[in-house]
């Protein structure tokens, strides 16, 4: 079966100064959850925005393949992209507090998607909005439709964002850190909601997160990014069973596990920060923070196969210790 979203060698430059994304390739299969993992500033969000055609001005996108279902997104005009966005592909964001327009009611903001893509009237669009608010677990949808964003909590606003994204039954939902700004208990609710919706609607989900706990819970397929590059990709089981790239292993070592971490021991961390990569940078972006770096790391490192369906980008052999 052909993937819902196929990306090959996606590159994004900002005004020719920063290479934010350097050759990312991934496939999102129908009905699966594909997690894009990495720490802040590694290019996850930029990759997602590039797929949606939502990059800010001054950003240049380039890709060998960028296909959504049967549509080649690289050849699509802005107008054509706008017709897909909100209809067949939808996106929700990290900042539920500011992602809704403060000047319009929930109902008006939800209805306009349906009116735009389905040519529906206001009445039909509001009915649909009420139905979806119910679906994402919001009680008294009729009342909520008449409310303004500032009258809702962060968790409720993110539910509204999800409901709004689902107005036109999208094939693909891109969720960019949808729970990062929320309380832990609300996080769990939202994740559970996404799982339920995915099961019921057969939604394909591209979930961006820095939280490996969320990955373990949600992902079928995982892509790990570092400094704009894909450093490892595998099924969730394979990744957690046999993490291969030093960065992936480092990330996993950062998770404190109750019972194995002692009180006086320092928590795991990877020293240093993600470097800013200028165009023309060669070699592994992680080498300055990597304890296993070799001279060969300064040359272009190719993706290698650790096992069928499990790729990693490192000079070390797959079974290094």
């Amino acid at each position, binding site marked *: 079966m052909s993937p819902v979203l196929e990306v090959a060698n996606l590159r994004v430059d900002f005004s020719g100064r920063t290479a934010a994304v350097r050759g990312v390739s991934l496939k999102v299969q129908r009905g699966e959850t594909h997690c894009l993992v990495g720490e802040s500033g590694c290019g996850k969000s930029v990759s997602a925005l590039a797929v*949606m055609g*939502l990059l800010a001005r001054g950003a240049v996108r380039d890709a060998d393949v960028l296909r959504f279902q049967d549509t080649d997104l690289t050849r699509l005009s802005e107008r054509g*992209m*706008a*017709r*897909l*966005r*909100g*209809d067949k592909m*939808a*996106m929700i*964001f990290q*900042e539920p507090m*500011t*992602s*809704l*327009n*403060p*000047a*319009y009611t929930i109902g008006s903001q939800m209805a*306009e*998607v349906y009116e*735009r*893509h389905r040519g529906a009237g206001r009445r039909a669009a509001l009915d649909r909005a009420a139905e979806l608010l119910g679906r994402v677990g919001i009680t008294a949808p009729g009342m909520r439709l008449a409310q*303004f964003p*500032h*009258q809702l909590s962060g968790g409720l606003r993110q539910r509204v*964002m999800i409901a*709004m*994204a689902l107005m036109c039954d999208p094939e693909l939902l891109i969720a960019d850190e949808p729970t990062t700004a929320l309380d832990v208990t609300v996080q769990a609710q939202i994740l559970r909601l996404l799982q339920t919706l995915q099961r019921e609607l057969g939604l394909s989900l591209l979930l961006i997160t820095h939280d490996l706990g969320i990955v373990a819970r949600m992902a079928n397929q995982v892509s790990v990014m570092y400094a704009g590059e894909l450093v490892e990709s595998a099924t969730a089981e394979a990744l957690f069973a046999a993490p291969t790239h030093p960065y992936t292993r480092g990330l996993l070592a950062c998770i404190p596990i109750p019972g194995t971490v002692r009180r006086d021991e320092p928590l795991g961390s990877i020293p240093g920060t993600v470097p800013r990569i200028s165009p023309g940078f060669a070699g592994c972006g992680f080498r300055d923070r990597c304890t296993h770096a070799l001279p060969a790391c300064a040359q272009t490192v190719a993706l290698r196969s650790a096992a069928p369906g499990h790729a990693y980008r490192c000079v070390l052999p797959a079974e290094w210790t």
Partner: protein
Amino acid sequence: MLIFVFRRAVLALLVCLTVLVVSFALTRLSGDLAASIAGPNATADDVAIIRKNYGLDRPLTQQFVDWAAAAASGDLGRSYLYHAPVSGLIRVRLPVTLTLGLSGLAIALVVAIPLGILAAMREGSAADRAIMLVALLGQAMPSFWLSLTLIIWFGLNLQWLPISGIESWQGYILPATVLAFSAIPALMRLTRAGMVDALSADYIRTARAKGLSRSKIVLKHALRNAAMPVVSIAAVQLGFMLGGSIVIETVFALPGIGYLAWESISKNDFPVVQAVVMILALLYIGLTLLADLMNAVLDPRLRAS
């Protein structure tokens, strides 16, 4: 919403009261009114008689209460200069100033808002810089100079428009244009700044992610949020235009309230001065109140507080 309106209205009323006191006090502080009415050649006895006849010998509080009570019933006293009731003078002059101010504001908004939006959408481009340069020039250009230039071009050389008076509506075109010019730079800059802010907001990214058309994103989602400071400043600008059009009314010989104010101040015609200050202050207060209410309509968060 009702509480919001009530609070604003009470505030406006308090400001009104303060203005009444200040406008009354200012005319009394400007010198001996009886002496200036009597003129430079009057004897001390003449001044004393005038002081008694005009009631200027009574305590100030008494004078204020009498004046305020009369003003409340529509009697603003008599002009010493025109020997006519002040309320009549104002009734004739106010419509001229209102017409001038409102047309000036209308022209300003029609020019400033689209240009401000355009500059914001092309932030940093040549078009943006050109628009901002024009705004700068407009701000630097004195209105009397612009008035005279327009009179020479369109009134004398081309003979398209009348250069003075208001025999027909065409008489308003040049003065309203000059007034608009003084308001355009601020309105345009505010529109641009508000739109630049709004266009980079997260909810605009959401609107784009929903696949909305560009015009809907810009004119519905961004402009609504950028409009609030513009509304506030537009109200203040209109207040300026109504009260501060003395130069323009003089240059174009328009019998408006600004010209009346200038005349009565220079001749110390204090009942007119008091009345004009009061009327302009009331207009200002009314405009500010209107702007507050419009902002409450634009931004639901204001209604809640």
